[in-house]
């Protein structure tokens, strides 16, 4: 890092003066800033590290010595959470549901965004407004009747039902994010393709969609995190325990709170629920933070 240079500037004539030896006020401010930010980092990291630590202990150990290291580092809790508490099958369900919903959302969302961004047709403004409405209405208002909508379709408590619901609820955000993207793509390329005889369909799939790849990646990551962490929709609509997703499994731990809970398994389940999103976050950290900023503040 270059800001460690300690040379004094020749004078105030330089456009960007280099840093002089830090004054005591500066040093105090730096210490204060770092203290505040480090304390916050600890507030974030310590509970997570503690969770990992607890996940290696037995319930008895957690109660007797909540802050000691585990007497024996074993994966027993992970095994029992995975098998006995059903985290394994919830994990599989989550992967299926999030994977399918993510694919559908990206496909349908990008197609609709493209149609809305590049085609003029009667009612376009209304459709846009209705899609925007889905973002501002409290989700809770919809969820109650949605239960019976799904029941009516025979999809209550099924994975396809959950996949369609996830898709429908992730749709408005995806469309809105991508409309801006497709509007910015140069129209000349699409026109050139049309003159060359490419159909509208082909223009989309072979030219426009690949060009929107960075935007697609950003929304996909945001949607992945959002869908993996989704709790309310499965809680209400995914009523069959064999079809549960991870967040439901974790909630079951919470609602059975008391001495019957296998606390070691609870912490192990928490770790296993966090790890996939954490991996995605660490790998795509820049893109995720970038897309949050880009997609939210217009």
């Amino acid at each position, binding site marked *: 890092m270059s800001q460690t240079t300690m040379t004094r500037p020749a004078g105030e004539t330089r456009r960007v003066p280099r840093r002089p030896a830090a004054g005591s006020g500066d040093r105090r401010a730096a210490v204060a800033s770092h203290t*505040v930010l480090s304390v916050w980092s600890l507030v974030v990291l310590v509970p997570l590290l503690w969770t990992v630590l607890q996940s290696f202990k037995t319930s008895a150990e957690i*109660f007797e010595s909540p802050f000691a290291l585990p007497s024996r580092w074993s994966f027993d809790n992970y095994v029992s959470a995975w098998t006995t508490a059903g985290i394994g099958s919830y994990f599989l369900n989550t992967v299926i549901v999030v994977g399918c919903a993510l694919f559908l959302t990206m496909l349908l969302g990008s197609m609709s965004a493209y149609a809305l961004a590049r085609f003029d047709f009667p009612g376009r403004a209304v459709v846009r407004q209705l899609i925007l409405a889905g973002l501002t209405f409290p989700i809770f208002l919809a969820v109650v009747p949605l239960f019976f909508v799904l029941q009516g379709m025979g999809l209550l408590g099924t994975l396809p039902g959950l996949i369609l619901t996830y898709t429908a609820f992730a749709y408005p955000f995806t469309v809105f994010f991508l409309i801006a993207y497709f509007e910015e793509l140069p129209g000349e390329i699409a026109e050139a393709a049309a003159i060359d005889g490419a159909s509208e369909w082909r223009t989309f799939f072979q030219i426009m969609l690949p060009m929107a790849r960075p935007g697609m990646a950003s929304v996909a990551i945001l949607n992945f995190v959002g869908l993996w962490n989704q709790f309310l929709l499965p809680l209400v609509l995914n009523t069959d325990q064999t079809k549960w997703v991870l967040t439901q499994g974790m909630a079951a731990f919470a609602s059975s709170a008391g001495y019957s809970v296998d606390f070691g398994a609870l912490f192990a389940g928490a770790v296993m629920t966090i790890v996939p999103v954490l991996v995605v976050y660490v790998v795509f950290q820049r893109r995720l933070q970038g897309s949050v900023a880009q997609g939210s503040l217009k």
Partner: protein
Amino acid sequence: MLRRRRLDLDRASLLIVFLLLPFSLYAVMVLWPFVQAVSYSLTSWSGFSPDKPFIGLDNYTELLGDETFRTAVRNSLVLLVVLPIVTLGIAFAFAVLVTVGGPSAGGVRGVRGSAFYRVVSFFPYVIPAIVVGLVWAQAYDPNSGLLNGVLTNAGLDQFEAYAWLGEKRTAMAATIGVAVWGMVGFYMVLFIAAIQGIDREVLEAARLDGAGRVRISRSIVAPYLAGSVRAAYIYIGIFALDCFVYVQALNSTGGPDNSTLVITQQIYTTAFTKGDFGKACAMGVVLALLTFAFVGILQLVSRIRSRGTTPVTPMGGVR
């Protein structure tokens, strides 16, 4: 001529498949339930009976006299005010520190190690809210929890077995603390992006005129970010009113003396535990009206201050 016809068919088929089909799914599963909720709120439907007896505004008048619901509304309003102020305040301060909080001489920059602080602070946002709630419910545990362990080790013996979530005095504050923990990094990233949108030249010019970090934050960053902060207030306000997971994970029964009970929890139990479907929908409508009133007021404020913003949910599509 032939080419035009072909194009028309081409376009029509594209619009049908690209827009009409997905939009229908969205309409059936998102928009239609919203409309249904409003009409169900005028009935005393139990959810499972074949008929839906129309009772007009009875559900709403009943809600007016419902002590528990009034408590829930009050708690939601507390969340609506306190959660954004605390979260956005901390997020703003951190964003300023990591972007312009560096030394007062030389180029304008953040404190050292900003990248690390940014990455770590954003961490909780990607963790499922239910897990955040569970981990903190354990951390708040009176006897084996992390928090009391840290406090008693620091010599504060009065926290030996203090039940943070079980005492009326602290239950709500402890709940808000968890939500703040989960959200600060997200808004910090938003504000950092907005600050990075400030013209470097302006910052450097101010620096040459002798402005230190405090002066730059107050006179340049703060006014420039006013619009972003208002937009952020809209998102976090909608979130605060819609908040369910954290409160449910920390105190699924509404906390001591209903001190952490919020509207969404009331809707959930009224619909799915008590089966009072019409009333739950009426509560949902009340929640929606509150949300619209809140968003409307904030947008009015931003229109008066001339920088309009469009609310777009930042929660990755699915809240």
